[in-house]
């Protein structure tokens, strides 16, 4: 009985189709959790909205672009500053947030004038910035504000600016995944091919689906520089608006996050004939494999081997130090989707860690095919998990550390189980060789942190007494 109905789900038996326990002799032809489906009434989803997927995950990463959010102020605040994606120009994207701050009267009488005023005001206040994304949100989509027309008017009046519109209100999909999709397809159809890049190398590629979380992109860029490969566009870590308009000129698309950004790689292949190479950028073995494949594509294998040898000599001893101390530890991964399949084998192979439960907020069945192929028997694979399910799974698999976001992280801290921020990282970057040592260090520090055990004791009396949490 590999699909699992947890005790806490007895009242919502539909959840059984979303939770899989892998056993020997089965594969994804037999069982594949339902995913990218509407959240079942009665379960408190941890998902974000479609707008969040477009703005927080992809658009908001850009380093030179105003992100105008046409909606109430909360839509802006709640998709700003909760991810740590720095830039090499002083973190412009993380310093500012823009909103049309829609109020009741604007909803009643229409918000297009207010949007135009806000766009002009933002460009006037920041005269050096000439690029903008404009997003609809739930209320402005419902009242039918035509943001494309407003953007067109502004571009006619201000010929030096360029504006991309993303019509992806929160309700337009079942999770943030819809926002990834809308932004990808909108960008390829409206902006790619509208500018020509300066080519500086005979080897060119786009790096797609890496968002410079705590410097991931900048770390990997040191590799591409050493290899002599020009990255025409980063989609979208430390990325620039105009670079992304030039994606059609790359010889190769290298994809890390296939969930958020696979669409644009597929379209670049379909429309421009650029091959798509999927790699894993987390983990020593995976990173080396990715570098080898990229270099083989360009016929520069020797450069790749030299880089791998240099990085391995520098970082492998540190990785091994942590591996000795993490071998046999049990990890749960509760993140968005792709990190489940990126990480499960890399922590197993490189650090000796066993991944015992994985939950995806917005993964599709493609993601579950990958993670079930890579993950272990006896491991739980969960789509759109909720808090009660997490509590029950924790009792079943007893993880030593949980990689998840801050909200769920605070929850598990109450149970005195350490968590590492699987979205924004604790102390990244985590990609590449150096990055995976950082991940190992943060895992080690979490697992061996004595404070969590001390926090579970009440020492006021003569004898220390184990504290009970409200939930116990």
């Amino acid at each position, binding site marked *: 009985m590999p699909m699992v109905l947890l005790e806490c789900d007895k009242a919502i038996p539909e959840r059984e189709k979303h939770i899989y326990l892998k056993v020997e002799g089965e594969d994804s032809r037999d069982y594949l959790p339902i995913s990218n489906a509407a959240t079942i009434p009665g379960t408190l989803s941890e998902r974000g909205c479609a707008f969040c997927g477009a703005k927080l995950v992809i658009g908001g990463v850009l380093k030179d672009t105003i992100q105008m959010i046409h909606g109430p102020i909360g839509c802006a605040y709640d998709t700003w500053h909760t991810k740590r994606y720095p830039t090499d120009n002083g973190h412009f994207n993380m310093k500012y947030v823009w909103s049309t701050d829609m109020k009741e009267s604007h909803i009643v009488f229409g918000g297009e004038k207010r949007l135009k005023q806000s766009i002009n005001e933002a460009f006037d206040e920041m005269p050096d910035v000439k690029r903008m994304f404009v997003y609809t949100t739930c209320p402005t989509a419902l009242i039918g504000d035509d943001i494309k027309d407003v953007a067109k008017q502004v571009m006619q009046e201000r010929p030096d600016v360029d504006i991309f519109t993303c019509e992806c209100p929160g309700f337009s999909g079942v999770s943030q995944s819809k926002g990834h999709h809308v932004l990808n397809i909108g960008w390829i159809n409206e902006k790619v091919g509208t500018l020509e890049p300066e080519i500086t190398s005979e080897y060119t590629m786009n790096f797609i689906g890496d968002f410079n979380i705590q410097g991931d992109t900048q770390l990997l860029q040191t590799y591409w520089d050493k290899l002599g490969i020009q990255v025409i566009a980063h989609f979208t870590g430390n990325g620039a608006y105009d670079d992304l308009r030039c994606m059609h000129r790359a010889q190769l698309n290298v994809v890390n996050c296939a969930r958020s950004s696979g*669409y644009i790689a597929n379209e670049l292949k379909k429309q421009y004939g650029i*091959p798509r*190479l999927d790699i894993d950028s987390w983990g020593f073995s995976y990173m080396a494999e990715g570098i080898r494949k990229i270099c083989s594509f360009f016929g520069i294998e020797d450069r790749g081997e030299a880089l791998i040898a240099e990085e391995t000599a520098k970082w492998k001893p540190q990785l091994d130090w942590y591996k000795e101390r993490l071998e046999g530890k049990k990890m749960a991964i509760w993140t968005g989707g792709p990190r489940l399949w990126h990480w499960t084998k890399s922590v197993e192979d490189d650090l000796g860690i066993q991944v015992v439960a994985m939950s995806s907020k917005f993964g599709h069945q493609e993601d579950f095919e990958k993670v079930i192929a890579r993950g272990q028997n006896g491991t739980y694979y969960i789509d759109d998990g909720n808090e009660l399910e997490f509590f029950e799974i924790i009792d079943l698999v007893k993880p030593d550390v949980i990689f998840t976001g801050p909200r769920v992280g605070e929850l598990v801290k109450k149970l005195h189980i350490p968590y590492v921020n699987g979205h924004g990282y604790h102390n990244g970057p985590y990609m590449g060789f150096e990055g995976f040592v950082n991940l190992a260090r943060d895992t080690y520090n979490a697992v061996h942190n004595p404070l969590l055990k001390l926090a579970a004791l009440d020492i006021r009396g003569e004898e220390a007494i184990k504290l009970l949490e409200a939930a116990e």
Partner: protein
Amino acid sequence: MREQQVKQLFDLVQQRYLWQFFSRSRDRIENINGIIAAANDMFRGVEPKRHLPMEKLFYADALEMVKDFKEAFPWIDTLEPTKIPELLEALKAELVDHTITKSLNHELNHSLY
């Protein structure tokens, strides 16, 4: 024996490579066919074509797969050369069966991305 050998290769491919799990059936079959064909050339000592962009891609993926096969399964170098194409053909059939024909992924055959 042959069944076991195919299973060993298949298990390694399933655990390791992302190209078999692209979004749509048409991309999966293109990758599987292209990479297995390039691997076949490599085992036979024939230089795979590397002129077109997709040929370069298949070469890069196949090169890693062949290297991994040789490292993980030393028996592969002891096979008669005529057996390798049969083995890879059987591997291809398994991959197609798992990732396309009997896949439960409902998005595989959508016409759009």
